[in-house]
């Protein structure tokens, strides 16, 4: 049974006409230990669907079910800082903090019980291929690939079951994209995470287990 299910999900902007949906009748199921790709053309609603999965938006129709529970009935803050990790194309890191501080802040918010948060953060950074030297740097002193690795490390800081990534390799070169995909593959296979990647990169689609294609509603 999937850890995350989308049942007849539809979404329409609040100010849009009643019949003008971004998408409708979406029925996807996601399981732990697998990598998924949601692909589609620009404007097809990939990022919107991601917002519904992460609980940043509420769906107009249908239900998003996490671990058998409807998101509408869940504490979404707790859901976001415990059960789901999000990685963005633009990394969404706090530039005034250092790399390690971004990870520790995420642990603080999630209230994860870790004895030595700094040590744990360094371990996570090591897992995504970053050294202790990177830890002390401010975010803007890191390259795009390094920033994305920090974003992945941050999303793993509270050990969530699902990692949602919105165009995680969109700003990265081919080699870095492959390295990031390796990290995701490792997380899915070795750490039993459910990886959902929103993308329109064929290379990403070639490396995932299941692809969902989102078509623009006419």
């Amino acid at each position: 049974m999937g850890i995350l299910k989308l049942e007849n999900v539809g979404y329409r902007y609040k100010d849009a006409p009643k019949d003008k949906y971004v998408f409708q009748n979406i029925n996807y199921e996601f399981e732990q230990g697998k990598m998924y790709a949601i692909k589609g053309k620009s404007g097809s609603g990939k990022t919107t669907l991601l917002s519904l999965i992460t609980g940043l938006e509420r769906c107009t129709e249908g239900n998003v079910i996490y671990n058998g529970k409807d998101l509408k009935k869940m504490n979404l803050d707790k859901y976001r800082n415990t059960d789901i990790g999000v990685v963005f194309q633009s990394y969404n890191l706090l530039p005034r903090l250092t790399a390690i501080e971004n990870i520790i802040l995420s642990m603080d918010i999630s209230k994860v019980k870790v004895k030595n948060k700094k040590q744990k953060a360094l371990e996570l950074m090591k897992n995504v291929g970053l050294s202790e030297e990177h830890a002390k740097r401010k975010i803007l002193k890191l390259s795009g690939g390094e920033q994305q690795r920090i974003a992945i490390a941050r999303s793993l800081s509270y050990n969530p079951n699902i990692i949602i990534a919105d165009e995680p390799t969109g700003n990265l070169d081919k080699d870095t994209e492959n390295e990031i995909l390796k990290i995701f593959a490792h997380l899915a296979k070795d750490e039993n995470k459910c990886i959902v990647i929103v993308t329109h990169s064929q290379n990403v689609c070639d490396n995932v287990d299941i692809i969902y294609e989102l078509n623009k509603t006419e």
Partner: protein
Amino acid sequence: MYILKNSLVSIIRNKGRNILIGIIILVIACASTVTLAIRNTASTLVKNYEEAHDIIATISFNRKELASNFKGGEDAKKENIETFNNIESITLENVKNYGQSEYLKGYYYTYSTSLNSDTITKATDTYEYEVEDRQTTTNSTTTTTGGNGGNQGRGPGGGERHTVTNNETTTVITKSKEKFESSKNLTGDFQLDGYSSYDAMTDFVQGNYKVTDGEMISNFDTFECVVSSELATLNEITVGSTITLKNPNTETTYDFTVTGIYTDNQESDDSNSMFSKSANTIITGSGIIEKLVQEDSTLVTNITPSFIVNDENAIEDFSNQLKEKGLNEYYTINTNLDELKNATKSIENVKTFATTFLIITLIISAIVLLVINMINIRERKYEIGVFRTIGMSKLKLAIQFILELLIVSAVMLCIGAILGSYLSKPIGNMLLQNEIDSSQMQEEEISDNFGKGRTNGNEP
């Protein structure tokens, strides 16, 4: 805990924004402290003035009321005068009765009478001298001695007649007194003003009179007095001298020890006399006048009471109470309230200005801070988004932002308050120096006007 840590990190790493907010808060704190200090100083000055200057109610004759009842015609003159005579004067008993009121802090009075003296000459511009008229006749043997009735040598035209017998001639010597006076005569004898307290000595408090030699009487019940410099010069009276005054009715004499000599500082009065009005006024305690009246109840006296009213609101109640106690309708209650209010008006203006300035500063600052914080939140939209994405609740986010503002505000308010307290003294002094100086000078002057005799308390 992480919220506080995050707030501190945010403050330290967003220096520009926080310095801007800090400067605004510093200016607000500084201006507010200075304004509050000025306001408090002004309030203290007003309070001190009000404490030092009581609301005094006095009873005065309502001549207007009497005039409204005047009748016309030749026959009405007597009736009008009778009406006036029928208005009872205020007695010491009345004053003591009126003084027993819950609306008063206390009361004092000036109790006056007039006495004569054989030993000292009053300051007057009338000069009397003796003249001798000799008339010689022949072949007369005897002449009768004796004057013309009760005017023995005293009034104009009076004199003593002596008979001189001469075998051949008789010389009749007629002694008489002639008067040389200014066209505007000073009337009356020595006025003895008996004060019940130092506060009652308003001429000394206001600086009209000043003890220039010796000191003010130290006891209100002993035969001590302070005389005018004019009377002292004319009669060669010095501090420590004894003067003898005489009851005009009973001829009883009273010896007064002179404790001080005062000068009338009033540049002019409305008379054309060569002496001041106060020249024959002798200052003593009210207890002495009471003793004199006890001995001779026919002694003509005059009493001027002053009542220290609790506060502004008590004036009307006290006035009504006096009417209930039987104060004649021809008397009216007056107070120095307007005078007191005028005296503190400039300080009140500074206080009002300070309050208005403070309110305007706070309103403008509140608007500026609100705008800056709105801009700040807009600028931090990305940061808010990141926090929300990683699961920070809106409440915690709001707490963090408020905490940041509070920390900056608290630090800058402290600095501003310290800075303001240093600035408030010179600025406050600059604005209120005249009032502070005049207040201090007034105290010193009053003390000086009484010589060394006045103690801190009202009673000696």
